């Protein structure tokens, strides 16, 4: 099976460690992953902000970049959902031959059929189900099943887990007060749960939550789920 990594522009530029962790994890599980270097962005920001004409060529480019692979894996629920659900209606003629785009945890549980990936992460963690990964992709329990299998990890329940964190792409800057209020409530719930780490499958949401936490000096670290799953006993004690 030819598997391509779609790292996403946000991870490429700001959170390479999520991409590195994804590669590490997939290779540890025996998947030879390729990185088509021409890839850039799926166009979600353009489309969701109201610029479909700017997004369309990016959807077409995505189809060209990933043509010929058997599967595309992305460490992002939001970008995977956009490519899976919106690209076909945005650029119907181009997208026909695109392979299925999997969010990382769905690829692990549904294609590789693994839950215990041999990770070790001895910390108290809450999982925030990001809106697009849960409502558009329907990830459901998949990420939780993976987390429960991580050695040493103490999974705490996040109150109001299914509520949006307030990121919402350009919503975060167009409605900064409401966005901030939503994010602070989410952080308060994580702190209430006694978590050291807040994890999710989308670094865009984590960038918002992590930024809010750091600005007020909150002792809570945001971490992409791929990084937890890539933390192995082999490479040390996590953090």
């Amino acid at each position, binding site marked *: 099976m030819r598997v391509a990594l779609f*790292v996403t*522009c946000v*991870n*490429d*530029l*700001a*959170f*390479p*460690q999520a*991409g*590195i962790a994804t*590669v*590490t994890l997939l*290779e*540890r599980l025996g998947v*030879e992953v*390729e*990185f088509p*270097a021409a890839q*850039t*962005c799926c166009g979600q*920001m*353009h489309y969701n*902000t*109201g*610029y*479909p004409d*700017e*997004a369309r*060529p*990016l959807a077409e*480019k995505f189809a060209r970049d990933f043509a010929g692979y058997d599967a595309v894996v992305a460490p992002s629920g939001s970008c995977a959902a956009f490519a899976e659900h919106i690209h076909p209606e945005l650029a119907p003629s181009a997208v026909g031959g695109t392979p299925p785009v999997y969010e990382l945890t769905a690829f692990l549980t549904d294609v590789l059929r693994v839950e215990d990936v041999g990770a070790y992460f001895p910390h108290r963690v809450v999982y925030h189900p990001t*809106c*697009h990964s849960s*409502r*558009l992709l329907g990830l459901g329990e998949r990420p939780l099943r993976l987390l429960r299998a991580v050695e040493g990890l103490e999974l705490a329940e996040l109150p109001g887990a299914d*509520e949006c964190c307030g*990121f*919402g*792409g*350009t*919503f975060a*800057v167009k*409605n*900064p*007060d*409401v*966005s901030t*209020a*939503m*994010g602070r409530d989410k952080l308060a719930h994580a702190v209430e749960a006694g978590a050291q780490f807040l994890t999710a499958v989308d670094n865009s949401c984590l960038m*918002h939550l*992590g*930024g809010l936490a*750091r*600005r007020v000096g909150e002792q809570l670290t*945001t971490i992409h789920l791929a*990084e937890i799953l890539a*933390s192995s006993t082999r490479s040390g004690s996590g*953090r």
Partner: protein
Amino acid sequence: MSGTFVGMPAFPVAARASTRDAVLRANLARATHTIRHKREQAVGELADWEALRAAGAAIKDRTLRHLDHYLLQAEQQVTAAGGIVHWARDGEQANRIAADLIHATGQREVVKIKSMATQEIGLNEALAAAGITAYETDLAELIVQLGGDRPSHLLVPAIHRNRTEIRQIFREQMGAWGRPAPQDLTDDPAALAEAARVHLREKFLRAQVAVCGANFLIAETGTLAIFESEGNGRMCLTLPHTLIAIVGIEKLIPTWRDLEVFSQLLPRSSTAERMNPYTSFITGTTHGDGPQAFHLILLDNGRTHALADPIGRQALRCIRCSACLNVCPVYERAGGHAYGSAYPGPIGAILTPQLRGLTSALDASLPYASSLCGACYQACPVAIDIPQVLIHLRAQATTRPGHRAERAAMRATRWLMLRPKPFAAAARLTARTRRLHPTRLPGPAAAWSATRALPRAPEQTFRDWWAKNHTPPAPRDTTTPTPRHDTRQQQEGA
């Protein structure tokens, strides 16, 4: 405070004040979370909920597709049953027709059943200008009216008020509108309800004219269906001599059989009840029983404009249950007033710009009043894909003035992202200059950095890491040794 929404600021500005109002935030959080959980239970009881939801959407879509036919059928049936049908292109026409009808009765006051359509067109204010006093008889609408306030929720228009505030409004304002509240009124819910009951009873017994809306208008018999909880609607529908109904043209359903679906969808989604306490049906007039004169004003007011839009028209399926408000994290923080119309929350964000157009700063800001989390779509009993319509309306909003800089930025990023080499170079430059990055951003991006630390720029981009650690893709049948990576070395915030 004015009773209308004219001159409201854009959503983000109005929402800012709400997010800083601790009492409002607490009132809204408590109320929405309570209804939210009750709705989940009420909906969870029905094994065929998703089928009902699909049926509701299908019935509404079919009706809207043949709206011309069903409207004429309804007119014919209402007329045959002794009613008189009036057609109103917009709110102003509807208000004028209503005022003229009331003047013709010689009356100067009317009692009202809670109605979103009359809130939408500002009927009370128009009647006041014509010398007619309209008395709201729904408890929450009464609180809003006495408080000189505006509704902030479809179902619970006074959701932004707590008991203590309601007690104060009753004590200070009831006397100016009729029977005063007792001086020793407490904030016990039963005492507040009793004060309202006694105050309203006078109005019911005196009124000769009532104004109502409708939840549904059944075309095959010309029957209005009114779903309510308090019984005030039943009073208004039976006691006065003249009944004037103002009904949006999207309220039609073809047959009584169709009502079977909606009489399950609406109460469970709205009040989280299996069945609402009072459901009234009115078909024209009956000699010696109920209203002896019945007028139906069919209201367009932008609805045909929405109907012409293949994606936007699904907003006309709405049955005004308010489930989308109760699950919306933006509504919970911004409050209903920030939406600047009778229709707050997610449904308002897609309905108002279609009914009124995207011309005002407020209306143009409404499609952006959402994080696109999708909770509304999930809760909607007629499966309106609100995020889809929001994005569709955003694409219309960006063609209007005021988006030049944003459009240029979108074009520039699209240009760069279509060109991997310049993209990689720009990304590399960003990483190399990481020590020079400011902690606060200028321009529109300041809205990000005002409350959020920027992510620390990594030492290298992912693609640079890949280029250093992976040899170019070799022929697939050769086995390349797996490189070792230390993922921990560059974790954010480490």
